[in-house]
């Protein structure tokens, strides 16, 4: 899946001066199957990037093309299809249901596209050290634990592109590496790419190239 940002400038960022290499207000192509790092300091629009790409905000100028199709022309069904099986997202605020258990949170997402494979989900949880949290309500988990559940939830759906908004912000290096390993494996399995936003060190991250904001 190829994504093209063509002169995109969200209104809240229109007052800020952007560098020549910034994604905003210039033409940037996110190549299909590539693992891309989106590195920027706070307030440069990392979350805005995710939200504009996923159709959650429309207050921008310019065009976003997904496989040459302008997102402004997508109808509800096409957006649903895109969110369901083409682009998986780990939102910065995680978007988990605190009143539901880890199992229920994963099941709810998985059942939108395919029958829920609980063994696969349990294996992933175990890999990230959360095996005992299966029946725990998400609201009772720490932020780091919730972050790992949100990553697993994104990984269990089919996707061509995985978009992650600061997914390791609450994780120590060891857990971040484990998560990265899981992400890389899943992307290899699906021959998919990812876009990962981050605001700090990138030593432990493996990626193909970097885009600035």
């Amino acid at each position, binding site marked *: 899946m190829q994504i093209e940002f063509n002169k995109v400038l969200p209104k809240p960022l229109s007052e800020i001066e952007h560098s020549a290499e910034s994604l905003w207000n210039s033409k940037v192509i996110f190549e299909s199957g590539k693992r891309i790092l989106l590195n920027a300091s706070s307030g440069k629009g990392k979350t805005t990037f995710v939200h504009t790409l*996923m*159709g*959650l*905000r*429309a207050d921008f100028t310019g065009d976003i093309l997904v496989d040459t199709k302008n997102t402004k022309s997508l109808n*509800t*069904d096409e*957006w*649903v*299809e895109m*969110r*369901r*099986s083409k682009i998986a*997202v780990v*939102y910065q605020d995680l*978007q*988990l*249901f605190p*009143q*539901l258990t880890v199992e*229920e949170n994963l*099941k*709810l*997402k998985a*059942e*939108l*596209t395919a029958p829920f494979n609980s063994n696969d989900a349990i294996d992933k949880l175990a890999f990230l050290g959360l095996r005992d949290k299966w029946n725990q309500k998400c609201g009772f988990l720490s932020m780091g634990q919730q972050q790992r559940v949100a990553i697993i939830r994104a990984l269990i*759906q089919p996707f061509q592109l995985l978009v992650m908004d600061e997914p390791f912000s609450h994780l120590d290096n060891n857990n971040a590496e484990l998560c990265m390993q899981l992400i890389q494996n899943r992307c290899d399995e699906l021959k998919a790419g990812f876009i990962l936003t981050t605001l700090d060190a990138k030593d432990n991250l493996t990626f193909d190239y970097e885009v600035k904001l």
Partner: protein
Amino acid sequence: MIKNLLFKYQEKRQLVIALIGALLGITFLISSVHYLHKINEYGEDSEILGKNTLILQKKVTSASTMGLTKTDFSEKEISKMKLEPFVEDVKPVISNNFRVWFETNDPYVPTFKSDVFIQAVSKEFLDVKSEKWHWKEGERFVPMIMPRDFLVMLNTFMNASGIPQVSDDLAMKLKFRLRISDGQKEEWVDTKIIGFTNEIASILVPENFMEYATKKFAQGDPGKITQIMVAGKEGEFGKLETYMNVHGLESKNSQVVVSRLKSIVGTLFAVILVISIVAVIASGLVLIQYMQLVLSHNKYEVRTLLRLGMHPKLISKTFFRYFLFVFLLVLTAGFGFFVLLKYFVDEIFQTGGIYMNEQISIMAFSSIFLTFIIFTLASYRTAKNEVFTLFNK
């Protein structure tokens, strides 16, 4: 799981209040529609006069006896009355101006004959099928509507003659005839009773027959119009009654009592109906508002489900079905309460001597159906609008 997520953690108190309001509103709505319909229907089957129709005459006073005032109606008086806003129509009641005898003409019944008084009224005032109520020269039978008091008198005679008394149905099968005369020539015509009335004291015949007999046998001047038929507008009987009092008019007491009773009770139920409609609308709005509140409380959940790829139609359908189920429960319970209430109200009416058809009015069912349709549309629209608004947020 979605239902669990969206409805398990909701605040139930407001829902209970809305449900109680809706339940009461619907119970009273069904009840008032049912009884309003039944009251309008009351007495229609048993009488031959049309709806809201009275026969009026002027009150006989000492002055009229001394010839100081008239007891007949002039053309001008009739035309003036027609112009009143609460009056649908006015027509004179034509009385015979020749001699008439009524007699039995059946081998199974002993001869009975009596001088009678016949009258003709315009067909529009009668609630009889038109194919039964017509006559033209050369036809064998003249249809007639008999005062029920006359049948009582006939039965008294039958009893005295040692013959079994006759019912309404049997009387309509017996053969009778009228003898009309101007004192010199006379004619016999066969007649058939097609119905009975408690509202008119004379035998009613079709206008055509009256015209024919008047032309052939009338003596002297045309008969004076001493009675008129008045059809009042629906629900405006009170105004007609006031007019009658002001103009010294009177009607047969039972007619006035029934019409007044129907008018008062009808107005009462109409008021209850309006209150019920307001209550149903208010409780419907509270339910819809509650739906908006649930949606608002679940804004995060709905938005997250949409972000995860759930179709907005599926989410709005979940809300819509939930509230439809709740409303169907309210309607069913409301209908149950109505049946219970009807049992007691019917008992009260029967204790007061008012026997109404006990079947549940089709209008009551229609009101349930209409309420259901309106709520369905409103809740569908609300659910759809609220969910789709969150889709791109």
